[in-house]
């Protein structure tokens, strides 16, 4: 398949057919279920079929051209780039854990929703159009060219590596979890199956292949998320359009919280009852706003970190290098957010429906307030208890299930609600395929961001500037495999409990990259020395603060566990790194000689949409 005008013009038709084909596949699976094919086999077929399609797209998109490999030939149309970015953005964790987060965290947790969407306003106004005009292949390519020199380039690769690698192990972990559950294989094997699927999609065609598989993955994941939400809503009487119609249900949850009481369990009680790790119970209000200045600050500080982090994450920014023009890059950010909005605005609705289904004693699905022996005999409770995803502890010994006695893993909200509401298993199979698509697409984007920075910025720009195209692309592919394998190797140890949160990637990126990128465009006076000092002081201060504040590290030289400064805990350490980066960068820039005329002209040209890009088409 040659990526000429013909292919681009036919994209709506191609993906229309693909979507239709997927719908037919769902129907065939539904018929198969009626005909008695087992639930397990349906899950296997869903995952296998979709992964094979992605691999096929990856194979068709193979390339031997540098600009196709790095930036998909810069001809991805606005709307399709929006879908690809949405898939790139929404990780396996977003897909399976977001609704669970809202389910347990309520209003407070939803700072993540605002943070993970509001950041795109920063991307669109401060970054994307200018980076597109610049014509870079990678984010460090911009920093290295704007500020000039190998050292600043290497510093930005360092930040990119820390931020993206933190993120990618979590994604490969998610791929492994879903592959192992859907295919019924051990987790350790699932990780490698996931890795191979990821590499098949990206290795032969780089950014071009990742782009077209991500569009395909978006279509699968959005169908897999929305179909159950709408279906469950009509089934439990929430209305045909839950987003506009769940007001009464949210109010009803408030009443039920009053009725059952929001009780906090003591750690000792939970330990004595043997509650498995990672399982949670509802102890906070669903829609109520916690009182007090600190609660407000916690909400705002988390939102700020996620927004600024979004605008600094290289695997997202690089998606806007692939559009045909600056104008298209701007519009494409808007489309990205629209496609993200479709899923993110549905997560709270799913959480509401799922919570109501379990809590409302008037519904046939309700379990809270029923007798424990009765609940333990429900089919789905039995299934999920056996894999330690749900747990019951009768603290007060009355034989009745109280709200604080029901424990569940966050993922269960997405993975089990269809089953709870009595939807056919074909929907659960679809949800597996959606989760797999979400995890793979993000992992692909991240692995590519890291290996591209290493192959383009470190290998080609610093180590061997004379390398020919074939050698460059070979190095890029070898690095892709190495990075992927390293991520899978680490993921296979299941270190998630000490690796911490996906939020860290945002804090790292914001500490070291946000201000160097913004000031590179918006402040001509920013100098090389300022950028180097800013990047390094930002990332190192952020990292040190994390080591200082995160209880699980409790580094001895810092005197063990420390109380967060101004409520800035390990999820928010970017609020330390980024301001330090900004101040150091400004001070050092003003202390050094202003950039030469050529650099100033480069910045001027970056600001104007028309005219030649700063870096050539092939560089």
């Amino acid at each position, binding site marked *: 398949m040659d990526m000429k005008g013909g292919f681009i013009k036919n994209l709506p038709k191609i993906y229309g057919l693909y979507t239709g084909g997927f719908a037919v596949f769902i129907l065939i699976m539904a018929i198969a279920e009626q005909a008695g094919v087992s639930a397990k086999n349906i899950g296997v077929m869903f995952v296998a079929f979709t992964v094979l399609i992605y691999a096929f797209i990856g194979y068709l998109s193979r390339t031997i051209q540098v600009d196709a490999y790095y930036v998909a030939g810069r001809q991805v149309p606005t709307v399709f780039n929006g879908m690809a970015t949405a898939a790139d953005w929404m990780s396996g964790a977003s897909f399976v854990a977001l609704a669970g987060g809202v389910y347990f965290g309520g209003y407070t947790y939803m700072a993540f929703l605002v943070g993970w969407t509001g950041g795109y306003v920063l991307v669109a106004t401060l970054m994307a159009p200018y980076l597109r005009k610049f014509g870079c292949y990678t984010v460090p390519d911009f920093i290295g060219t704007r500020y000039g020199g190998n050292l600043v380039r290497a510093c930005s690769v360092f930040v990119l590596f820390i931020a993206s690698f933190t993120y990618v192990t979590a994604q490969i972990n998610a791929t492994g979890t879903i592959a192992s559950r859907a295919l019924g294989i051990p987790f350790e094997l699932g990780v490698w199956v996931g890795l191979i699927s990821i590499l098949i999609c990206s290795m032969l065609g780089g950014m071009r292949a990742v782009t077209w598989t991500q569009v395909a993955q978006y279509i699968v994941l959005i169908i897999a998320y929305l179909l159950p939400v709408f279906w469950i809503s009509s089934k439990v009487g929430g209305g045909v359009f839950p987003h506009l119609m769940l007001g009464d249900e949210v109010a009803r949850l408030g009443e039920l919280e009053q009725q059952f009481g929001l009780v906090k369990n003591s750690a000792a009680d939970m330990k004595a009852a043997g509650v498995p790790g990672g399982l949670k119970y509802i102890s906070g209000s*669903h829609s109520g706003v916690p009182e007090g200045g600190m609660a407000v600050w916690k909400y705002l500080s988390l939102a700020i970190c996620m927004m600024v982090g979004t605008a600094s994450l290289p695997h997202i920014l690089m998606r806007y290098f692939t559009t045909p023009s600056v104008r298209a890059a701007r519009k494409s950010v808007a489309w990205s957010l629209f496609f993200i909005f479709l899923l993110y605005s549905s997560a709270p609705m799913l959480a509401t429906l799922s919570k109501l289904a379990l809590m409302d004693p008037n519904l046939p699905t309700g379990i809270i307030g029923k007798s424990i022996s009765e609940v333990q005999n429900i089919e789905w409770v039995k299934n999920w208890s056996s894999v330690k995803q749900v747990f019951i502890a009768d603290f007060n010994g009355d034989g009745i299930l109280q709200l604080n006695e029901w424990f569940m893993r966050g993922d269960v909200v997405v993975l089990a609600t269809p089953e709870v509401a009595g939807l056919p298993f074909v929907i659960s199979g679809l949800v597996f395929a959606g989760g797999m698509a979400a995890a793979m697409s993000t992992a692909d984007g991240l692995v590519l961001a890291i290996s591209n920075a290493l192959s383009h910025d470190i290998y080609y720009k610093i180590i061997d500037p004379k390398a020919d195209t074939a050698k460059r692309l070979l190095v890029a592919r070898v690095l892709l495999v190495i990075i992927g394998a390293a991520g899978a190797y680490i993921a296979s140890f299941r270190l998630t409990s000490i690796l911490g949160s996906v939020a860290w990637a945002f804090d790292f990126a914001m500490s070291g990259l946000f201000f160097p990128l913004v000031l590179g465009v918006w402040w001509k006076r920013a100098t090389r020395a300022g950028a180097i000092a800013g990047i390094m002081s930002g990332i190192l201060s952020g990292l040190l603060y994390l080591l200082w504040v995160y209880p699980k590290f409790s580094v001895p030289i810092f005197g063990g566990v420390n109380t967060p400064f101004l409520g800035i805990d390990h999820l928010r350490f970017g609020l330390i790194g980024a301001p330090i980066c900004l101040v150091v960068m400004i001070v050092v820039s003003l202390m050094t000689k202003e950039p030469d005329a050529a650099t100033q002209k480069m910045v001027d040209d970056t600001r104007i949409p028309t005219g030649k890009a700063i870096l050539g088409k092939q560089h």
Partner: protein
Amino acid sequence: MSNKDAYWAKTKNHMIVTLVLWAFFSLVIFMFGSELNTMSFLGYPLAYYMTAQGSLLAFVVMLFWTANKQEKIDEEHGFSEREED
């Protein structure tokens, strides 16, 4: 002032306006979460609605608006790209 400078001044203003709106929907309204939650919209408590859906929607609308406005600024100053997509 040269055309380029005038263009950049307008672009900068537009950026500031966009970021003020952004700060309003992402930060300012959530400073008053408890107060807003006493009001309701579509039957949802208002602060809950904004964090679950309203602010997200505002960002989407804002991005289309801001891109269109910037295109107008491009055109006024002759920096509009001709493109075939």
